[in-house]
């Protein structure tokens, strides 16, 4: 098995607020992330696909195709967007790194037809990331 990883960056804004909680609770739990104007990050996404290289092409999957999938599914959907209001898949969720990573997994998994999606790692800052993988697969 070979594991292939492609990186991409996108910039987006978000805020954390749960309408079921009081203003004070939101402030206490989410701190400065609760600022109603939102704030932004440069996200770095690492997408890892596992598979056997095709004997003819030597590729697990064509990187060009992966790049197009990532552009269509992630960049166009999230880059320079306000995640709370403009990304349908995040509606009703707090757009934390954990939740965005899960949304990205669910967007990408059905689109990757050669090899299989193995891992999604999303950095919100260089010091904070979330990783998503199938239960039972080993994180690394």
């Amino acid at each position: 098995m070979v594991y292939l990883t492609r990186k991409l960056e996108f910039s987006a804004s978000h805020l954390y607020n749960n309408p079921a909680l009081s203003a004070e609770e939101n402030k206490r739990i989410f701190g400065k992330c609760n600022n109603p104007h939102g704030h932004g990050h440069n996200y770095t996404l690492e997408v890892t696909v596992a598979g056997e290289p095709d004997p003819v092409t030597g590729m697990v999957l064509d990187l060009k195709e992966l790049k197009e999938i990532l552009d269509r599914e992630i960049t166009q959907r999230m880059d320079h967007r306000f995640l709370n209001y403009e990304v349908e898949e995040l509606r009703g969720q707090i757009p934390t790194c954990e939740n965005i990573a899960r949304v990205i997994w669910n967007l990408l998994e059905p689109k990757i037809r050669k090899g299989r999606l193995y891992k999604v790692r999303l950095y919100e800052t260089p010091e904070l990331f979330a990783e998503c993988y199938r239960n039972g697969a080993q994180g690394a």
Partner: protein
Amino acid sequence: MNDGLKIELGRRYQFSASHRLHSERLSEEDNWRVYGKCNNPYGHGHNYVVEVRVSGSVDPATGMIANLTDLDGFVGREVLEPFDHKLLNEEVAAFQETVPTTENLCKEIYRRLKPFPKAKLERVRVEETFNNSFEYAGEEAQDRQTIQ
């Protein structure tokens, strides 16, 4: 959410500390042969990076596995405050008996963070320099296959 997906949160911290690699069980010559310049009796320092990985269910009310305030506070109390700007050999009890190699440092940090009450500690990675890094995920995980 039971969709067969596992989510982990990773957080990176930094502290600076000095150490000296020297084993009481070895002769002066052997210490020098084994540890080389790391055996310098005055010690030397590093900017250590600690990457902490935790897992758990994502709370639908907060979208979080663990609130970063809780994780940062715990890591701060258990690791960063006792280690930052310290001589590990002299000022951290665990290293009065064992050599503060980064292997042992990684295990000690894991031991200190394992009781974190808000999520499950998965693994600890310590980067001693840009070129050297170490990971520990508990004894039961030693044979698990990993990839970078």
